């Protein structure tokens, strides 16, 4: 394995999708797509998956905290929470004090905590481990994301899976198609002859080299997504005091767009959102509490908004790894391995899933994973997307009981 997997992969995403289009000639005019999007709202009852990526490696031990375990207290005396500080979940575990909204969801039976999630021979590199999570391929580098492979099996539709923010995460890159990136903010398209010319610029041309084809596809996709999401985003922008969100937007802004899209029955089955900054090598406690507070407010606010929508919403949140059990000299923690993963929403069966890793039987200072992350994916694929997990993951993994 080399570092270039991520890069290869980012490149593969657009290129493969665009060249497949150019070669196959499955060309759709934007008017056709627009007509399709307004005439095929998501059927009621069809579940929606929202995937939250926490970039940087969130410290699992200070998220779902084994506060009563003496080994936890002695490994990180300055970073540890006392049993009285955490929000009790039972079995000696408690949520970080910043996760108050999630604790309410737990009380309502709508939060599943999957414990000890990881994979064999864990990588301590952000890039490699995030690649592994997004491709669901721990042993071999691969050029497609796990949801990209699901998209491949569905046929090209830029609306089927949508990422919020400027760049497309590898997890939505397939071999023959890929998801779309949706800006957080309103669209501004020209009109009249300028729009006609812009539309012509995005037409696929059979002889285009790969990168040129990808650029044309981006122009074309803009027209498609602007038509489908434009009214939703315009409404959202009008209700905000701000002058318009820029870039990726905060997690709350990203989830606001998702909630509005779900309410408008946009035909999207998967949304990818993200929050970064979890690489807490120094001064961890304040930083992580602040980030988890941001996460908690955004997620619990979002789940409140979609709780009674016609389409059930399942939200899953993961990070590329947890952190070392032992603290370092800067009141932080270095890169580790297994960590808990949250699944929440109205259809979710709350409670613990998977075994809590031992704090004394360590692998070179790191936790040993108890639940393969691909079991979580298999469950989401089968229960939320009604897909065949084997086809996406290449082998069978036991499904979990959180749905």
């Amino acid at each position: 394995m080399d570092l270039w997997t991520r890069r290869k992969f980012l490149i593969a995403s657009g290129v493969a999708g665009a060249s497949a289009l150019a070669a196959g000639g499955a060309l759709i005019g934007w008017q056709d797509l627009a007509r399709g999007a307004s005439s095929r709202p998501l059927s009621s009852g069809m579940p929606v998956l929202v995937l939250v990526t926490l970039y940087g490696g969130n410290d699992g031990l200070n998220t779902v905290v084994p506060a009563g375990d003496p080994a936890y207290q002695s490994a990180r005396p300055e970073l540890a929470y006392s049993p009285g500080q955490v929000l009790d979940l039972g079995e000696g575990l408690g949520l970080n004090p910043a996760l108050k909204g999630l604790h309410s969801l737990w009380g309502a039976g709508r939060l599943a905590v999957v414990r000890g999630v990881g994979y064999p021979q864990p990588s301590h590199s952000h890039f490699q481990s995030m690649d592994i999570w997004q491709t669901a391929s721990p042993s071999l580098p691969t050029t497609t994301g796990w949801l990209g492979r699901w998209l491949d099996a569905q046929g090209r539709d830029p609306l089927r899976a949508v990422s919020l923010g400027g760049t497309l995460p590898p997890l939505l890159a397939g071999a023959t198609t890929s998801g779309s990136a949706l800006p957080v903010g309103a669209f501004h398209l020209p009109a009249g002859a300028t729009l006609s010319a812009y539309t012509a610029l995005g037409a696929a041309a059979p002889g285009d080299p790969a990168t040129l084809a990808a650029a044309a596809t981006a122009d074309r996709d803009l027209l498609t997504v602007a038509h489908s999401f434009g009214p939703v985003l315009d409404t959202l922008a009008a209700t905000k005091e701000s002058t318009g969100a820029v870039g990726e937007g905060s997690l709350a802004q990203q989830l606001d767009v998702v909630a509005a899209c779900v309410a408008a029955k946009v035909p999207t089955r998967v949304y990818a959102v993200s929050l970064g900054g979890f690489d807490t090598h120094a001064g961890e406690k304040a930083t992580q509490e602040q980030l988890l507070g941001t996460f908690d407010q955004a997620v619990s606010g979002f789940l409140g908004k979609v709780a009674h929508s016609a389409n059930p919403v399942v939200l899953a949140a993961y990070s590329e790894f947890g952190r070392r059990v032992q603290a370092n000299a800067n009141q932080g923690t270095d890169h580790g391995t297994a960590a808990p993963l949250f699944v929440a929403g109205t259809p979710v069966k709350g409670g613990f899933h998977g075994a809590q890793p031992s704090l004394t039987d360590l692998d070179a200072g790191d936790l040993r994973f108890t639940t393969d992350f691909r079991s979580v994916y298999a469950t989401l694929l089968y229960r939320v997307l009604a897909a065949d997990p084997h086809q996406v993951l290449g082998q069978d993994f036991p499904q979990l009981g959180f749905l």
Partner: protein
Amino acid sequence: MVVSSSSAGVTAEVSARGQVAHLLRRAGFGGRAAELDAAEKAGYEATVATLLAGPPGTADAGVAATPPPAFTAIAPPGRDPAARRQANRERAQQAAQLAGWWLARMVRADGPLVEKRTWFWHGHWATSIQKVRSAPLMLAQNQTLRTLGGGDFGTLAQAMVRDPALAVWLDEIGSTKAAPNENLARELMELFTLGVGHYTELDVRAAARALTGWRLDRSGGRLVFVPAAHDDTPKTILGRTADFDSVSLVDLLVGQPASHAWVVTRMWNRYAAPGEVPADVMVRLQAAYGDGRDLTALLRALLLDAVFRSSTVVGALAKQPVEYVVGALRALGVTPDDTDQAVLLGTLRRLGQVPFEPPNVGGWPAGDAWLTAAAAQARLDFARWAVTKADLGAVSAAPTDSRVDVAARLLGLDAWSDRTRTALQGVASEPRTLVALALAAPEYAVN
């Protein structure tokens, strides 16, 4: 007009004008119309020499016109909330001033190669002001990258492990022998010098011990070594056992054969094409880099390589957002002033690439990840703004049926596809619309 004999076969498909247009895009930020004409006339090899030499003498008028900002120190605000808010505002202003300055420098420099190379190194030693929280330290790092980016890679690497901004960013500061912090040690091997697969977890942990003992003198803007906090016991790194410190660790790393291949790969991937470096190219570029780790010799060999000029490399990268914005402003002859700064930084924020704010230590993505619907919207908005700032007299003065070609020359492109030519012809009666859509065309998104 084709190619030299040594590269015949691989470069046959790319015209001479196409090759110099490619060279000016990759070594700089794209040729202005007159620069492209002059480069075609001078020839490819001569243009490489001119780019590497920079403007004659030491006088680069564009550089002289964009001196780095002089920042006033922001006093520690203490605990008072109002004072803290004020300090945060000042820090944000300085960050915007710093990024705005560098963009203006990139737009105005007559010799663009140094700024492009500094931009490359900023992505390699990717450090973010969001954690460093100091414009002066980020500026000092930027000057180090500019000054040392064309010399011995070992000298650059030694300067970087003692660079205060990088030390804050990767927690070198305050890492002690009692509990070493692995952040810098890991990224030094994984991203800066070796690449994944050329070291073990034990090497990372030992290297972290070698890097212990540094503190930051904030007022002096430099690192101070504290012997008592340094682990001076023997460490085994990459099979060698010694009392490694930061200097001997970096010497060990940059001397590894894997490091030579890594530096060549990083440069090839950003200047030429994604993916593995072709085996014959790797041999040639490593030979140029040599035992002296000569970064200018490496860049020269890369730009002159037959494969670099061939159809497998021409058009194989997408423009990164900064390359797109800077290239467009240079082509249009727009000199951004202070009032334009908010538009430029806003555009780059929407596109996901603000200078001094890489998303993580791996830097920004390369390639087609930039080509999304969201980015297409931001590019279109920027293009429609940029043409209002530009003098489009050359386009307006041309007859309507040749304006599409004039727009290509203006933007430093050697050709349009039939698709784009037809689309642009439909708006040729409106010069502003024509140039805005030319900037939004697929051809201009490709590097």
